[in-house]
Structure formats: C-alpha cells, structure tokens
C-alpha cells in the first residue's frame, strides 16, 4: 500500500515535471512545478524524512513558488497570446539539442544506477519513531557539527537580500536622484 503511494507520487512528480517543460503558459508551468514538488515531498515523507517533507512544502511550495508566480504576474506573462510568452521552440537546432542532451543525461544516470551494485536493504526494517530526521538530533547536528555551514547560509541569505534589493530597485533609485537625465536616457534607449 505504502509502495503504491510512492509510485503514484513518483508518477505525479514526473508527469508534472513534463508539464513544467511543455506548458505554453508560464502560470501553468508554475502550477505544474508545484504539483511536482508535492509529489517529491510525498516521497520524502514515505522515505521517513518528515521534516524535509514539511520544509519542501513550506519553503518550496509556499515561498519559492509564490515568488515565481508573483514575478510571472508582475511581468504579465500569464497571457498565452502575449508576444513574450515562449512556448517550446518550433523547429531549429536548439530543441533537438536540448532533448538530445536530456536523453544522454538520462541514459548516463540510469546506466550508473543500474551498475551501482548497491547493498540490498534488509527486509522488514522498521522506521525509527521520529523518522530518519528527528528534529532534535538534526538541530543538534546543525548547531554543533555544521555550525560553520549554518552561519555561511545566514551570510548568504543576508547578501542575497541586499543584492536583490540593489538589482530590483536600481532604476527607481536613479529616477529619484536625477529624473531628467534618466528620462533622456530612456528616450534614447527607446529610439
């Protein structure tokens, strides 16, 4: 029964991933990606990683996908008839190249997995009660063994917040400083 749920979730995530690549409307792509993440979260849950499943849904499904959806709607890309909506490229070398590279990667990784010679899992192993990532032990490891990486992650997040502010607010700042110059520059750009 649990295995069936796993295979159903795996099928969902693969089909949804195909939907991300093939959907013409970027909004549909975002929603397919969300479905794919939910499927992946289910496989985490069934593998005994409850905490990972939770942050997969919260951070990926909640935060990152909302960010994507927000940008898609901010740039008004949801209209499938819009010029800048980009479906799969028609004809040409690039799509064939992309599919070819995808097939090569798939073949190589599947070949590696097939030859991996993994040790057989013992039958009837019961998951630990707290799952494979009990939150308390994970927190302990995070703040002892992995403190440096944790602090690095916080510095990275801070740098990102500053960098994103600079990237996204640059034009408005220059308008505030010198409006005539920017207007002329914009006109020159448009011309």
């Amino acid at each position: 029964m649990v295995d069936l749920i796993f295979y159903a979730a795996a099928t969902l995530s693969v089909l949804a991933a195909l939907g991300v690549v093939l959907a013409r409307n970027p909004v549909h792509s975002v929603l397919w990606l969300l479905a794919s993440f939910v499927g992946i979260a289910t496989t985490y849950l069934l593998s005994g990683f409850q905490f990972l499943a939770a942050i997969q849904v919260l951070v990926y499904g909640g935060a990152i996908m909302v960010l994507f959806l927000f940008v898609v709607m901010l740039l008004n890309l949801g209209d499938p008839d819009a010029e800048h909506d980009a479906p799969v490229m028609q004809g040409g070398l690039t799509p064939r190249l992309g599919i070819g590279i995808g097939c090569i990667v798939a073949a190589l990784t599947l070949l590696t997995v097939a030859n991996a010679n993994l040790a057989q899992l013992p039958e009837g192993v019961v998951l630990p009660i707290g799952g494979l990532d009990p939150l308390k032990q994970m927190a302990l490891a995070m703040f002892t063994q992995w403190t440096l990486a944790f602090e690095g992650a916080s510095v990275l997040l801070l740098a990102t917040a500053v960098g994103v502010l600079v990237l996204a607010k640059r034009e408005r700042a220059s308008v505030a400083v010198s409006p005539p110059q920017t207007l002329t520059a914009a006109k020159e750009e448009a011309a």
Partner: protein
Amino acid sequence: MSVPTEHLLILSAILFSIGVAGFFIRRNLIVVLMCIELMLNAANLAFVAGSRHNAFLAGQDQTDLEGPIMVTFVIVVAAVEAAVGLALVIALYRRKQSVDLRELTELEDGSHA
C-alpha cells in the same frame, strides 16, 4: 516502505533529465529558472535516497543526518538562487521588455550598446 533505493535514484535521474532538457528547450527565462529548481530537487532526492539507504543498512533505530542536513542547505541555496534569478529577470525585463532568452545577446559579438 520497501521500495528499493534504485527506484528512488531512477526517479531522481528522470526528474534531473527533464530539468536538463527543459533548460535547453525553453526560451522563457522564468521557465528556465524553474527547470533549474527541478534539477536541484532531483539532486535532493538523490541525497534522500542515499541517506535512507545508509540508515536502513545501519539497522533499527539508526538515523542518518548528513543527507537531510545537506538537503536543508540545498533548499536554502535554491531559495537564494530563485530570489537572485527573479530579480535579474525583473531587471532584464525593465531593459528589454521581454524575458525571451534569444533577445539576450549583448555578450555575443562585443557590440554592447
């Protein structure tokens, strides 16, 4: 769950390949970013598969924390990457009124405007 580790790895490989193919096929910058997220998730799935394999080999009531912790950091980096990538998309859209990858050719022949 008695699914063999190979099947988790195969799922990871398939998702990664779809991500790679989409990365090359699509020309909408936002969808390309989504394909990168898909690839990161496939890598996470491989981490989870390996961690689960280790824990089950070690026996009852054993946990393997390296995998989940690594996945946590990958999720942090994925969030950062999405934020920076989307900010870049917005900045590019301001300049070019488009998110089409084929129009981003400033670096192609040195004729920077």
